[in-house]
């Protein structure tokens, strides 16, 4: 059974079909990239998978549960337990230190454990910056804190929305490298992006256009390492 399965998903705002009969299966441990231009429905799809929105029609089966039928409260619970979110704008609580931001996720999930949080920061290479506030960290470092926060509760899926959109090449490489490590550890990754370089690293890539999946490609030469064209 697939970890995540979208069956005939529609999301309709008035006349606009943001998602129009989308079908998608994601296997456990898979690294999937979702690409598409602005307005293609990427964000809507990401919100639905991230349990932050519900489809107008269709089924979203996550780990055997149809989340389209759940209420807001249990969606929160599912999101908390199964999904780790990474955003383009980082979204760290700006008055909490790096480690506290990581602990925040633990706090909502179960019990905050400073040691475990520090280990997570170590995994993203920020152990020595644990006591810094977001404003004292660079963009890349902030995004790495977000990665640490996303993986701290061992989620089924890490869902990243334009994780490299605000980063320079160097930091982009670092973040993708982190994804590769996560993938090696068996984490399911869904990365929404419009950066082909980031998308091409993934095992599989789907392209959305006007709310429909227009193309799906499997990366034959999957290594998990980013390849620069130049």
């Amino acid at each position, binding site marked *: 059974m697939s970890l995540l399965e979208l069956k005939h998903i529609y999301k309709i705002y008035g006349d606009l079909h943001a998602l129009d009969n989308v079908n998608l299966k994601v296997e456990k441990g898979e690294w999937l990239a979702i690409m598409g231009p602005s307005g293609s429905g990427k*964000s809507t799809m990401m*919100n639905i998978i*991230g349990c*932050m*929105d519900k489809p107008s029609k269709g089924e979203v089966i996550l780990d055997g549960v149809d989340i389209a039928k759940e209420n807001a*409260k249990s969606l*929160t*619970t599912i*999101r*908390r*337990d199964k999904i780790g*979110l990474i*955003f383009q*704008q980082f*979204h760290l*609580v*700006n*008055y*909490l*230190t790096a480690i*506290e931001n990581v*602990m*925040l*996720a*633990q*706090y*909502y*999930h179960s*019990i*905050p*454990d400073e040691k475990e949080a520090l280990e997570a920061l170590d995994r993203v290479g920020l152990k020595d910056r644990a006591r810094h*506030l977001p404003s004292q960290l660079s963009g890349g470092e902030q995004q790495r804190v977000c990665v640490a*926060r996303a993986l701290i*509760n061992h989620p089924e899926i890490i869902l990243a929305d334009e994780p490299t959109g605000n980063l320079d090449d160097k930091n982009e490489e670092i973040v993708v490298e982190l994804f590769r490590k996560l993938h090696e550890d068996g984490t399911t990754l869904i990365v929404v992006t419009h950066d082909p370089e980031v998308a091409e690293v993934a095992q599989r890539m789907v392209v959305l256009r006007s709310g429909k999946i227009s193309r799906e490609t499997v990366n034959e030469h999957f290594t998990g390492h980013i390849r620069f064209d130049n």
Partner: protein
Amino acid sequence: MKTRKMFFRMITASLMRRRSRMIVALLAIAIGATILSGLITIYNDVPRQMGAQFRNYGANMILTPTEESFTKADFDEALSRIPDADLVGATPYRYETVRIHEQPIMAAGTDMESAKKTSPYWLVEGEWPASGSIMVGAGVAESLELKIGDTETVTYTIERGDGSEPEERTLDLTISGTLSTGGSEENYVYVPMEDLEQLTGTADRIDLAELSVSQTADQLNSSMEAINDGPEKVTASLVKRVTASETTVLTKLQALVLLVTIVVLALTMIYVATTMTAVVTERRKEIGLRKAIGASDLSIVREFMGEGMLLGGIGGLLGSFVGFAFAQFVSRNVFSSSISFRPLLVPVTILVSIAITAIACLIPIRSATSVDPALVLKGE
């Protein structure tokens, strides 16, 4: 345990690291709490303080003899029926007709120190008389052309009812001052009680006593009854003009301060609520983020309310002391007396501050938690 520790760690982090915003909120709450505790302290104290001012009108109770006159013992006995703290002043008077420049004049013998308290409105030019001196009413001074510093011979005639020669007694007294009141007192002369006793040769006689009692109308009535029911040979009666008017005016003044307090408090509390609402509304994005990483609505409400209520508590504590300082300042400047600190007002102020902050925070937090986290994180 660890969860609670994290809870406090987050709240303190929010308070310490978002300092400028927190100062905005804290300032608002502290202003509110200051006004709350300050005005309530003043309101509590106004009846007492204003009541004391009304004692400027002088005596509000008169003791008259049941028979011809009463004694010092009767007087003291009657006074013992009124709590010491309420008694502003009690002045015994003895009236005798004496002659100065062969003109008959009413002389009042009294205790000058008490008279100052029961008749604070007396305007004395020169000095109040000590032993051996006399104070003359402005009217007497003008008609008899008496001047301050003159020494006059005061004559008293003892008429014995047995037909024997009246005995004339005299005493030389120095005029220490003149008295203006705009009333009949201007036509009397005032001498210390012991001098009048020396002149007349009889002691321990009181014709009338004026009492200035700082009590409400009801308390006054019961004091009056207590004296009248007592065994001493005095009748107490209230000076209607003073007591009735005092009740009218004091009630109005109290109502004024109460209403002003209510209006100011209502407006201030709305202001505190507005500011707290603004401060929380600003953090919609953060609320969205917390929801996105898995916070339940309940835990968000709990954290933000915890933060707000902690602020409310600190602001309330701060305000209750600043407010007391303000009330003390007002009391010192307006009434030249100090206010005793009411410890009960501190927890009340803190609780009210917490309650208002909590209510003010609840509305924006509720509306923020009902918003889709995705929308909050994407837009705006």
